[in-house]
């Protein structure tokens, strides 16, 4: 059994690579959307705010799986051909973006208005206020929920197995199908997920510690 499990490891690692690629892309794109969305909600003109709010509330109210199927099966109907991996990236990023938007908005909103006043008072323009005063403080508060969302996204990436992307979960299922070694294989896959997420959490905690001097 151990030999069979050992020979299955390369397949699992290939799946892990896909999971990692997908997660990194989605976390990056989701964060980018999140920052744009969060800043729009806090500082944008009314019309933009309404659209972003609509996007966030809609997407947060829909299961990721529905979103995933909608992109994978829906876009081709509308004439856009899209592969399963790409569909996964799009659907998960749209989902991640909505959550990250709220995370970023909350972080910025939690910085007292007096900080903005003080920054205005020394003549800083909008972008300088954001870059030097608001964001450095907001990031400290964005970090814990951001890590939380990132970890959820790594786990959520397993859903793309349902549209045929051979990421870690589907790779595991394929190995189990070949070898009938159920518990050890899933345990191994579970450990891999855990390792990624534990690393992300620890990195977050480390950063948080670095910002510990931020007090009011």
């Amino acid at each position: 059994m151990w030999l069979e499990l050992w020979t299955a490891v390369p397949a699992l690692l290939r799946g892990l690579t896909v999971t990692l690629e997908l997660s990194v892309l989605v976390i990056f794109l989701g964060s980018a959307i999140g920052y744009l969305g969060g800043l729009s909600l806090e500082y944008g003109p009314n019309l933009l705010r309404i659209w972003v709010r609509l996007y966030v509330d809609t997407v947060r109210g829909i299961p990721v799986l529905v979103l995933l199927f909608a992109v994978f099966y829906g876009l081709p109907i509308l004439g856009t051909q899209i592969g399963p991996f790409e569909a996964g990236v799009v659907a998960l990023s749209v989902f991640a973006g909505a959550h990250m938007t709220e995370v970023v908005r909350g972080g910025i909103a939690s910085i007292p208005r007096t900080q903005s006043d003080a920054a205005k008072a020394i003549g800083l323009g909008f972008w300088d206020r954001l870059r030097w005063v608001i964001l450095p403080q907001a990031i400290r508060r964005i970090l814990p929920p951001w890590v939380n969302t990132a970890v959820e996204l790594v786990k959520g990436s397993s859903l793309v197995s349902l549209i045929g992307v051979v990421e870690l979960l589907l790779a595991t299922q394929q190995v189990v199908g070949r070898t009938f070694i159920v518990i050890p294989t899933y345990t191994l896959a579970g450990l891999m997920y855990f390792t990624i997420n534990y690393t992300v959490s620890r990195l977050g905690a480390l950063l948080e510690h670095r910002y510990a001097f931020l007090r009011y």
Partner: protein
Amino acid sequence: MRSPEQARTPIRNEPILRAVGVHKRFGSLEVLRGIDLDVRRGEVVALIGASGSGKTTFLRCINLLEEYDAGQIFVDGELIGYGERDGRRELLPERAITKQRAAIGIVFQSFNLFPHMTAEENILLGPMRVGGKSRQEASTIARAWLARVGLADKLTAHPFQLSGGQQQRVAIARALAMEPKLMLFDEVTSALDPELVGEVLAVMQDLARIGMTMVVVSHEMLFVREVAHRVVFMDEGRVVEEGSPHDLLINPRSERLKAFLSRFQGVFR
């Protein structure tokens, strides 16, 4: 001992700040109902009045932390915050407002230092990002002002490592580093423990002595009497009485001011 008169430097004649009929409302609440005020170069003007009388709102209008609804505020001859287009009053673009603000220093009741920066960084941010100075030049400026407010040894301290009085002195240094034409002080000692008030007032007195133009909202009546050239009493969004500290504080004319001052009884005897 110095007499109070010697603490005051002579003032020149041209007004650096001129407010004409300034109105401001928050929703249905009219906070400022037509404020007129001239402050000349080198003059120290104290604004006194009960809370809710509009003092703080007026100060915040001067550097446009609040937009005012009607009237005009000129600093050094320049209309603050608004321009005219097709004969209509219009808010200036952000960039122009930002530039005007840089020339007006304000110090807040709650210090509002940037908690993620050291004392030095708090002060050099303005000269660097707004004044276009190099890090080196800005740092020199920051050190000089920190020394001036007696905190040369706190260069690398973060705000949470400083006492309230020290934080407020850093905040004053931060405003001064922009070389403002005018300094506004908004109840800067109200949030301090009594034993820390003196060190902040001493810094302000030092500024008055070197001829800084200051508008000071304060409840420290002894300080007002000793340092201000002129006292302005506000009530319900209007200037009710103004004059020399002696006239106003010792011989108030209006009933409103008499009632207000009765709270400070004993201070002036």
